[in-house]
């Protein structure tokens, strides 16, 4: 399949990339890993007239942990996160990184690209919204840091101005008595998830839920934060009953569309099941247990 013709430009710095975006106009786009953009271009769902390759901008591929924050350069590949010790210390981050599509896509796709693309079925936004995350953006005349929940405005739409780039994705490391899980169900490894759910729960001294965050992916134009599910847990012990209430709230909050991945009803059922599973694993991890979680598909 052939993409619409475009001119190719390589940026050596963030400044150069921003300048090229200004010069080349509204139909120019950045390309990082290209694992979302290239398929869209081949299907002619995107037809930029110019591509600005940012893969060769130095020091955008670094993972740093300091001051209770984990900072991912925009060009950090999913594979790097999967195998990073610092990142794996936050289980929900590892769950997400280790199961995105397949090895080949994880070797090439980037966290910055995934967040900037704002695909409603993307994995990163859903999992990182369960934590306090933000996006550090670069523009020639200054920088700004935008909380992730404000960064994504709509399906495939972020707050980025035309000449603005994602520089870093910043994730606040959760406290010790907190645990999270990202569970995504997909039909096979390489495809987007049918439904995904992220849960992060923080326990108090007596083991009750002090704080909870529940996020759904793939069942709306953007990831959905389910506050009713969170309040079903907050201030209470995490039990079958409260988990069930949270799962029911999530089922209600989901806005799934019927498509080739499944009917809307099927997806609602999946939402409830995955939320249950995610909360259960998150709570066990908050208690210090080692539990495996992540993407599930036939043959895994």
């Amino acid at each position, binding site marked *: 399949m052939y993409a619409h013709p475009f001119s190719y430009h390589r940026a050596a710095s963030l400044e150069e990339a921003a300048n090229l975006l200004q010069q080349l106009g509204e139909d120019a786009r950045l390309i990082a890993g290209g694992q979302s953009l290239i398929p869209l271009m081949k299907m002619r769902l995107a037809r930029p007239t110019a591509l600005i*390759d940012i893969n060769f901008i130095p020091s955008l591929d670094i993972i740093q942990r300091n001051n209770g924050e984990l900072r991912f350069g925009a060009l950090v590949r999913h594979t790097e996160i999967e195998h990073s010790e610092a990142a794996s210390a936050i289980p929900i981050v590892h769950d997400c990184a280790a199961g995105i599509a397949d*090895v080949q896509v994880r070797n090439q796709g980037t966290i910055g690209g995934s967040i900037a693309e704002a695909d409603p079925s993307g994995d990163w936004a859903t999992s990182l919204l369960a934590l306090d995350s933000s996006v550090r953006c670069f523009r020639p005349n200054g920088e700004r840091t935008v909380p992730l929940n404000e960064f994504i405005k709509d399906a495939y739409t972020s707050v980025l101005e035309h000449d603005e780039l994602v520089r870093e994705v910043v994730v606040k490391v959760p406290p010790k008595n907190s645990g999270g899980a990202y569970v995504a169900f997909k039909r096979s490894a390489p495809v987007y998830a049918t439904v995904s759910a992220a849960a992060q729960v923080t326990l108090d001294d007596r083991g009750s839920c002090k704080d909870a965050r529940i996020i759904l992916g793939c069942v709306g134009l953007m990831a959905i934060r389910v506050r009713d599910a969170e309040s079903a847990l907050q201030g209470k012990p995490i039990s079958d009953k409260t988990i069930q209430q949270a799962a029911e709230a999530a089922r209600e909050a989901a806005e799934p569309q019927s498509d080739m991945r499944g009917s809307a009803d099927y997806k609602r059922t999946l939402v409830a099941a995955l939320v249950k599973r995610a909360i259960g694993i998150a709570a066990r991890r908050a208690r210090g247990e080692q539990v495996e979680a992540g993407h599930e598909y036939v043959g895994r």
Partner: protein
Amino acid sequence: MSDAEKIRVRIRVNGEAREAEVEPRTLLVEFLRDHLNLTGTHIGCDTTYCGACTVLLDGRTIKSCTLFAPMADGREITTVEGLAKNGNLHPVQKAFAECHGLQCGYCTPGLLLSSLHLLNKTPKPTDKQIRKAIAGNTCRCTGYQNIFKAIRTAAAEMEKR
């Protein structure tokens, strides 16, 4: 093909410096097949699914249908043609042949490179690691059992070296 401006792309392929003038929208797999005549890399689904087009980019597997050729300019690519040395099959190739790890062979180039990438990082993979490593490679003939056998055999063979 349109009359879009062509650009020169230089890539080290299987250790050799290669170049061609191509439209920027040329996919890496087309660059390899149509411009360098390296037809061992197959186009299966052309939608980032099946993994038949898997090659190594600077030592890591990628799907060459999902990279524009200019993005690989100045970098190193290994294709299935680069595996055999001096007429001797690579242990991974030998194992696939001996264990009947292929039937029609269409997915094989991609599977060979995914297997090699796995074994370079993880010389003694568990079955679970093998499953995860080849989850992005679809084979419609074999049912994967013999592919597993081939990868285990190749691991043992490479260990001896």
